């Protein structure tokens, strides 16, 4: 493990610890560290390779969380947008699915629309960072696939999300 990577890991751990220590309502769940760097390709060429999807801290961030009834991307996810967009640029054969989800409140069919809006918001952000629209498929599950089933603010915040899935690396 080289020194820059070790420093980066330390920084991540610290960020994660800080993120865990403060309890703020309506905040995204702890699994969303604010990554200090945008891109850190492991290969010497400066280009992402498929293995980076498993090792690169930024690329491993595959879930984007949203505020209640909102589809605006929160600032802390800009770094993730930049690195995933770079990956798509570096690997034109890569394909992703953006799976939009909503919390349980309100109409199920309306939430299907809300999930799609969130998927589109992520897609737009990736495109703004140079990711091609042709590499992305947006789909919405509305509130039908919750990751958390309690009726609480904390749980709702975890369910309002877009999951980035690589269908081709």
């Amino acid at each position, binding site marked *: 493990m080289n020194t820059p990577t070790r420093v980066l890991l330390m920084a991540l751990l610290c960020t994660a610890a800080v993120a865990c220590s403060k309890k703020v309502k309506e905040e995204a769940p702890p699994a969303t560290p604010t990554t200090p760097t945008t891109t850190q390709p492991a290969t010497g060429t400066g280009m992402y390779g498929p293995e980076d999807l498993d090792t690169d801290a930024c690329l491993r961030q595959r879930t984007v969380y949203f505020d209640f009834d909102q589809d605006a991307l929160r600032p802390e996810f800009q770094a993730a947008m930049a690195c995933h967009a770079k990956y798509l640029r570096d690997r034109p054969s890569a394909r992703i*699915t953006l799976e939009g989800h909503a919390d*349980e*409140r*309100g*109409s*199920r*069919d*309306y939430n*299907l*629309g*809300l999930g*799609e*809006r969130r998927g589109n918001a992520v897609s737009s952000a990736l495109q703004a960072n140079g990711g091609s629209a042709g590499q992305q498929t*947006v*789909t*919405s*599950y*509305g509130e*039908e*696939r*919750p*990751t958390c*089933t*309690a*009726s609480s603010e904390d749980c709702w915040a975890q369910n309002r999300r877009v999951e980035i899935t690589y269908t081709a690396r």
Partner: protein
Amino acid sequence: MTPIQRRLAITMRAWFAACLALLLPFAAAAQQGGLEIDIVGGNAQALPIAVVPMPYQGSGTPPDTDIARVVRDDLSRSGQFRGLPEQDMIERPTRGGEVNYATWRTLRQDFLVVGRVVDAGGGAYRVEYELFDVAKQERLLGIAMTGRANAMRDVAHQMADAIYEKILGVRGAFWTRIAYVTSTGTGENINYALMVADSDGHNPQVVVRSTEPLMSPDWSPDGRRLAYVSFEHNNNSAIYIQDLGTGARERVASFRGINSSPSFSPDGSRLALTLSRSGSPEIYVMDLGSKALTQLTSQIGIDTEPVWAADGRSVYFTSDRGGRPQVYQVPATGGSATRVTFQGTYNASPTVSFDGNRIAVAQGSGNVYRIALLDRSLGTPRWSTLSPGSLDESPSFAPNASMVLYAGREGTRGVLYAVSADGRVRQRLVLADGNVREPAWGPYRAR
């Protein structure tokens, strides 16, 4: 319901009637317990009716079904009747000749139903019953129905329909079916099922099982087919129409983006639906013969949940074009939409009564979602609240508009409730374990 629970319900009902004005907002919450039938308000106008147990007088095995109880529960659930508890029946006549009117007048009953079950030959039963007007000492109905043991609940529901119609002049909707979606498990291991059951939740049957979400069942007007949404194709929403008799099904919409909210037109020839293939969810009408699509809306916001007006000439739907979700109406051939709901910040999932006078919606305020009813029959729109919340959704009118079925919560579990359209009587439907949601009340059945 045990006798103790029943007595509790009666005591509380009297108490509520007295304190109605003060306590109505809290009464519903206080009643949420394990009771099968929740009385959520005074029920003074409900007609007292005694449905006397109908014994088996044949020579074989008696049927499992307590026919009188099914009839009594149906009538009570409607909010229009108050069934006399069985233990209060000091006489048990089984035919007209045995009826002592004075007894039932003393018990303050307006109507009386008596009957018996006899053998019909070939293993079938024959249920003979009569309906009496106690005050007039007059027989209103005398009917015999035949069926096998497994059809006795169907027979009982049809009896309740006949009694309801004879007394109220409105067709009963007890002998109908409901569709709904269940889910069990969490995370990656959720199993979904599309179900069909009797209107009281009994006799549940699986229509489709899937590990991908199932949504939005809607009945064809003849009750033979269900349209619904499944995610089994390419991990995206698609609309299917399935024949309940044969199980054969057809995928009618699987465009890019959302394919959701199917709604059969009153004549069954068209399907209103939501597609987001143009970029955002819009309302379309599909001709089911040619599969040709007509786009009804074109807005940047979310337009979804189309449902037909009774005359088939317009479609109600949910739209957030004004900022928050509200109900709008648009001609079925397209054109400009008009807003229908103005009270409340969140109105969605409209269901329309057969006569078009009333629209029930899921009405949200903060974190509380209730079923609300908009009555437009008296000129000025009038709102009433049908459910206590806090996560009530997916209302669906009975075909005679006497009741509304909706999905609510009991703890973290989704359950179904049936509430009388006047909000007086609410019952939790007894269904299997798992989360239950998205009820759709089916049409009248052909006799």
